[in-house]
Structure formats: C-alpha cells, structure tokens
C-alpha cells in the first residue's frame, strides 16, 4: 500500500469507477425517459405521469420475451438477450401507448380539455400500467441480464495498467452510453431534418397554423407515441440491465425524470438531456462515500475516519426533489428556456 504518498491517478481511477461511469449511464437512462416526457409535453401538451411506469411496461415485455428466447436457445453469446428482444418489445409498447391514447387521451383532446385535466388522466394511466406490470410479473425484483457482465473487469484493468485501483466497465454501462448516444442523435436528426419531424415541431409551435398548413394532427400524435415507445422501451431495458428490474423502483424514477425535464427547461429536448445528467451527477456525487478517495489524496495524518458521505443513498430521491424545488424557485423556465403551456 502506497497510502503514505498522495496518489492522484488512483484517486481519479476510483472516481471514474464509482462516480463517472455510474452517473454517465444513469444519466443516459434518465435522458431517454426525459426526452420522451418532453416530446409528449411539446406535442400533446401534458406532463405524462405514466412515463416511468410505461418504462416498466416496455421492460416487462423485454423480460418475458428474453426468458422465452433463452429457453429456446435463441441467444448470441456475449450480447444480453434482452437487447435482441427490444425491437419486438418496442412494437408491443407502441401498441400499448397508442391504445391508451385511443382509449383515454383522444377523448380529452376532442373536448379540448385543459392540460391539467389530461395530466390527471395520465396519473390514472400510470396506476393502470403499474398494475398490469405487477399483475403479470409480480412486484418482486428480478435480474434479466445475461451474457458477458464486463467489457473489461477490475482485475483485467489492474493487470493492464498496473494501477492499484481498478476500473471496471460493465457491459450494461457501455451499452447504455453508446445506445443512448445513437438514439439521441437519431431523435435530434429526426426532429431537425426530416419532413415528419419538422411537422411535429410545427405542430408543437403553433397548432392552429399547422392545421392550416395541412399537417395531419392525428398522424403527428401517432408518430409522437411511436417515438416515445422507442425511447421508453430502450430506457427501461437499459436501466433494468444496469440495476435490475423492480416495478416500484421504476415507478420512483418518475421524480428524477420530471426533475430532469424541468431543470433543463420543459419542452426543450436539449434541456431534458442536460437536466438528466445534472440530476444523475448530483445524485451520485452526493451519495458517494469519499473516504477512500480522500485517503488517496490526503497525507496520512489527515485521513478521514468516517465514510465522508454527504447524503445516505436511501435519500437519493430527495436530491431530485430539492433540485426541482430550487429550480422552480430561482429559474422556473429551466436551464434552456422551455415553453409553458397556456390553455387556450
């Protein structure tokens, strides 16, 4: 042990392993969920409380499908089977979300209900969706990741670099970050460059004028739900691969997701992503125990005896909540000025 001296490299290897990588992957998962909330908010004009439970719904289909596929031996070595099940799960989630739109939200659009009324309806959808998931999969926690657990493990990293402190890159982290990057790039390209994406933005900007320009509102709504289904299923699956699946845990994701959207500026896609990383880094940085990190950096005489943990992990949801309240008090429009719905 070289703990008599100050060891910056090992200190930051430690931080990379326990803060940077977890926060990046958690942030990516939140970002996809937040992007879905922002899309619904911009186009359908309500805050979708059912988002987190829809993620559980999408993940549920992935779990059912992948266990079926594993039973049949339909796997590719090294890749989590769940990932192979995602495309079909997206179809399933799309059907579910479009049916909910047909059964619930369409009615409120037709009678031109106030945004807050539709929000209340979405809370109903949230309970129904959560109920369906618990009914089918039970409320118990489960793991569904298979295949290689690590891209490289702590031991491999140590042998390769000779550092005392190892860094492991979990397959789920690697997949989360790369897939989220690709997906976000795709969504932005779609919204900025394609005819349909522009029509969605036009519809969100000025509904009446979009109708006068011949943009079909039903089609815009359907495309939105399809995009939301893609984001939702992938976000849920990546979160589950990383942290395991439990309906209640997914349900509680609603708070950090909403916090991300509001911190970033509601209705702004870039803001949703920025907000997601702000929330994830705050959560991880504030709940991390810095004892070992400080031991690497400080001379022996100053080594801490406590864990040096600012907030216990059991309070991590409070962090989103506090950030949310602070933002609403100081800068309610968020980091990237979002738009606020005014009922007409």
């Amino acid at each position, binding site marked *: 042990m070289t703990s008599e001296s100050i060891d910056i490299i090992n200190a930051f290897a430690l931080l990379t392993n326990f803060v940077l990588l977890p926060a990046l992957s958690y942030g990516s998962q939140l970002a996809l969920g937040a992007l879905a909330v922002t899309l619904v908010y911009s186009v359908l004009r309500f805050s979708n409380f059912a988002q987190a439970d829809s993620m559980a719904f999408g993940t549920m289909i992935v779990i059912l499908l992948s266990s079926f596929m594993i039973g049949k031996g339909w796997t590719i070595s090294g890749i989590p089977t769940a990932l192979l099940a995602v495309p079909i799960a997206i179809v399933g989630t799309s059907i579910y979300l479009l049916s909910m739109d047909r059964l619930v939200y369409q009615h409120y659009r037709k009678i031109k209900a106030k945004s807050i009324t539709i929000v209340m309806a979405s809370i109903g959808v949230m309970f129904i969706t959560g109920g369906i998931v618990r009914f089918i999969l039970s409320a118990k926690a489960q793991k569904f990741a298979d295949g290689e657990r690590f891209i490289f493990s702590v031991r491999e990293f140590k042998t390769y670099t000779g550092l005392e402190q190892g860094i492991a890159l979990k397959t789920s982290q690697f997949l989360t970050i790369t897939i989220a990057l690709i997906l976000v790039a795709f969504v932005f390209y779609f919204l900025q460059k394609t005819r349909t994406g522009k029509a969605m*933005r*036009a519809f969100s900007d000025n509904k*009446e*004028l979009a*109708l*006068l*320009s*011949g943009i079909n509102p039903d089609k815009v709504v359907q495309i939105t739900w399809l995009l939301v289904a893609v984001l939702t299923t992938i976000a849920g699956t990546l979160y589950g691969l990383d942290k395991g699946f439990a309906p209640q845990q997914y349900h509680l994701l609603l708070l950090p997701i909403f916090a991300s959207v509001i911190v970033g500026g509601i209705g702004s896609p870039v803001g949703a992503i920025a907000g997601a990383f702000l929330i994830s880094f705050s959560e991880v940085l504030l709940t991390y125990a810095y004892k070992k990190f400080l031991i690497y950096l400080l001379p022996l005489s100053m080594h801490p005896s406590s864990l040096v943990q600012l907030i216990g992990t059991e309070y991590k949801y409070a962090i989103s909540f506090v950030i949310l309240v602070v933002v609403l008090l100081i800068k309610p429009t968020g980091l990237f000025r979002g738009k606020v719905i005014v009922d007409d």
Partner: protein
Amino acid sequence: MAYLEGKNLVASYGVVPILHECSVEVEKGELAVIVGPNGAGKSTVMRVLLGMLDATSGSVTLDGKDISMLSTQDRISHGLAFVPQTKNVFPSMTVEENLQMGGFIRQDDINKTIEEVYALFPILYDKRKQLAEQLSGGQRQQVAFGRAMMTKPSIMLLDEPTAGVSPIVMDEIFSNILDVRNAGMAVLMVEQNAQQALKIADKGYVLVSGRNEHTGTGKELINNPEVRKKFLGG
C-alpha cells in the same frame, strides 16, 4: 360569377348569432377589403369562407364550384390560403422551415416556390436560417405571407394584417399586399385601419352587426359621406 363568393352567409358561435345573410366576393387580381366596427363579424366571414366555422346557411363557391362542404385542409389544397391575425408563424422554426411547412401538403418540388417567395421578399432570403421569433414585426408578417403563398394559392385571405404595427410597417405591409395582388392573386382582407385599407382596395365591404351595410369600390366608400361619418371618423 366571381372567383370566390360567399353568399348569404348565416353563422353563429353557439347560440350567439354573428352573421345575418352576409355576402362577399372577390375576383382574381383584385383586392377586396372588409371593414366595420368591432364585433361586426369581419373575422367570422373569413372563418366561414375557410371552413373553420360552419355556416348554418348560405354557400361558399370557388371558381364556380361549391366548396361549402369541404374541410379547411381541402379548401387549402383547392387554392385558398389564410394568414391569421396573430400567431401566424412557427416561432421556433427558421424562416426556411416556415416556408417548407407552408408547402407541406404539396407533393411536388417546393424549392421553386421558396425561390419565388425570396424574390418577392428579398430580406427573407438573408434571414432564411434565423428563427421566426427573432425577426421584426414587419419581417415576421412577410414570413406569414410567404408561408401562406407556399401552396401556390389563387386567393389569399388576410385577417387584420396591420394590427398592432407601427405606421411605417403598415405601409410596408400594404405594399406587400399590393405585390401579392399584382402577382395575379385574389386578396380578401379584414382591416381595422379602414381609411388606409380602402385607399388601396379595389372593392370594399362595410359590415355592421353581421350585415352588409355598404358595398362599393374603395374610392366610392371613402367618398360616401355616411361611411365617412360613421366609420372613417369624418
């Protein structure tokens, strides 16, 4: 028969009657103006012509064809275009994207029409990558006109195009409207600034409580003592 004709239109919002047998018509290459006091139903006439509000009786014909039963979108693909009074651009989209959205229903190449709009309003070409919300009031109005022209309409309906702009911008907008008319389109507009609008109008309608009170050429109406006294401030 005139190019666009609204004949004996009767309409109401709920139980409140707004239009009572009101008629307007406009020919190609002609600028017709509807003026009148607040609540006379001027904007309602536009909404009925566009199919945004159903008339309880009366008919709307375009080039001799009855279009009363068509939806707004169908009327737009038949050659009607509308520039609303407010919220007439997509604020968070660029000028060029605004024009592209205007031509959304067209299946053919819209780039030529975009060029035509730029030729008519050269400033829009310079600002084509800017967001509409960053433009001045007059420029934004040009974007609104440009967007409406993207369907290559034969008739433009304008709802109070000079509402809330400075007198200089008003002159600019009126000259834009004359450009549009001179390009061979029929233009029908509702206007608060009655005096100035009637000056450039080929035809004018004075509406009071949903009825045609006076009809004539712009000049006739300006010179009509009763119209002057009641609606033009002496």
